[in-house]
């Protein structure tokens, strides 16, 4: 298991308790500590900085509004992630209701060296990730970006553990398939065959 850099984030329990009691300064400190990873998570799920911003703001607003109802301060982090994922999915649903401009990027197939291959892998990952539905993206992001265990992912998404596991498995399979397809294309290019 590869450990993401965000793993091990510790929430200050005392701050959660104070914020739960209405202390806005405490909440501001919690928000300041969390906003980078929230923004990163939302960017990955929504694939749009503006929608990510809207989702983070909605999640933090709901967090503040409903914080007194959180019984266990130790579950703050999982709860906040759940609010964020729900806000991201809401954003994407709203986006689907609006006409969307799709920008097409021309694919270049330069001579393939080691570094170029890495770039190509990442391009392929990006394309594969875009093809995942929001729920699958959320599972991948929570597990591999935030470093949550599958049990924590399941809790954050309010899913049975088995569902979270199978959803992650399917998402990773699709990403692998995207990489495989891209690698086959590059290989054929190197061998002078049409892609």
């Amino acid at each position: 298991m590869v450990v993401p850099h965000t793993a091990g984030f510790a929430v200050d329990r005392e701050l959660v308790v104070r914020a739960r009691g209405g202390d806005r300064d405490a909440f501001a400190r919690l928000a300041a500590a969390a906003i980078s990873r929230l923004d990163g998570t939302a960017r990955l799920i929504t694939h749009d900085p503006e929608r990510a911003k809207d989702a983070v703001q909605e999640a933090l607003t709901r967090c503040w509004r409903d914080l007194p109802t959180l019984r266990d301060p130790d579950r703050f982090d999982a709860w906040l992630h759940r609010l964020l994922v729900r806000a991201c999915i809401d954003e994407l649903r709203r986006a689907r209701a609006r006409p969307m401009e799709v920008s097409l990027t021309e694919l270049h197939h330069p001579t393939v060296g080691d570094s170029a291959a890495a770039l190509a892998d990442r391009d392929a990952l990006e394309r594969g990730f875009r093809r995942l539905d929001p729920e699958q993206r959320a599972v991948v992001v929570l597990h591999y970006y935030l470093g949550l265990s599958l049990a924590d992912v399941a809790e954050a998404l309010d899913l049975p553990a088995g569902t979270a596991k199978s959803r992650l498995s399917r998402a990773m399979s699709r990403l692998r398939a995207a990489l495989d397809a891209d690698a086959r294309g590059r290989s054929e290019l190197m061998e002078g065959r049409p892609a």
Partner: protein
Amino acid sequence: MTGLTAHDNFERLVVGWLDETAGAGAPDYLDETLARIDHVAQRPAWLSPGRWLPMRALTLRRIEVPRFVPYLVALVLLVLIGLALLVAAGSQRRLPPPFGPAATGSFAYDSGGDLYLTGTDGVVRRLTDTPDRREFGAVWSRHGTRIAFGAVESGSRSASLWVTESDGSGTRRVSGDLELEPTAALPLASWSPDGRQLVIAADQRLYVVDADGANLRELGDGSVLGAEPTWSPLGDLIAFVGHEGPTGEDAVYVIDVGSGMTTRISQTRGGPTGLVPAWAPDGLRIAYHAGPTHADVFVATLGEPGWIERPIVTGSTIDSWPTWSNDGRRLSFVRSTVTDHGRIVVVNADGSGESVLASGTIGWSPHCWTPDDRSIIAVGAEENVSIGDEDAPGYVILSVDGTRAPVFIATPARQAFAACSWERLAP
């Protein structure tokens, strides 16, 4: 083919790509976000005490039907039919009017995850006994023929809405696949005046459903997100606490059941204590508490130019949960301070004639009038018994005219929430 695409390091590649794509810098909208949140009030903790309750497992317990000797049953039925025909005309239960004073029947409440009815004779009847499911938030229909309640299934964080007949028969789930907030302090649903429909909130959207679970539909276009809906006595409007957009401030709104048109009613900010609307029996006035630093009582009245907000009770105390008497002439509310639990205060509809009811220890939570307007019931405890912020051991019945001493009712699990509902009987 590269080594990476051989998938030996597939996970590492994914993690690296996620880190790069997410970006490492702190976003620049923290201050903007906090400024928006400055205008947002927190929901009181008691609004979702379901989160504070232990979740219990779920499945309906089947009612064991005893075996009958068929001939005996047939004979008994014949006798009963004969008797029924004799007294049919005079024995049909008269229904009370949906609003206005009525005779007082049973009090419905939840304790320890089951529903109970306590009659005016003090007899307690257990309405549900489901060790695998937690029921809460019972609310009688306005005619006193059915009870709606919420239920939380094992392992679930969301609730569903159920309806049962007054004798506990015909229990059915009516909220479809909607995931409702497991609130216990306020009823999960509000009945239409004719008792044929219910309004509920799920994920901040309002839904109307028939009492048999049919015709579930969303109200409005979702431009105003809302919760805590309550149906107008006239049946045409539903009041709720709503906000426009994720960062809009909470306000009291009404939505037209037919057209879905939404109108903001309250102008004063909700503040730390929230807003919960209460309809007067005439359907033309809505009471609520609001205020940025403490709570005052307001009444919005529907007149020719539209809804007009007017403060009824102001001051430095926290005056919350205004509740109309059934005749619509008086309002009660909970008055509390930082150091003191609540006292029930009764005023005339214009705010005059304030009187504080003698009480035991009253919780800071909603309360309700008996249908005959003689008493008010609130969550609480015996005199000099301290109660926590989350729950209380029972209910305190207070005499409105002060002629009777407060009565404390301990609930079976010594755990009471504010959702309280009285059965209305024909006068």
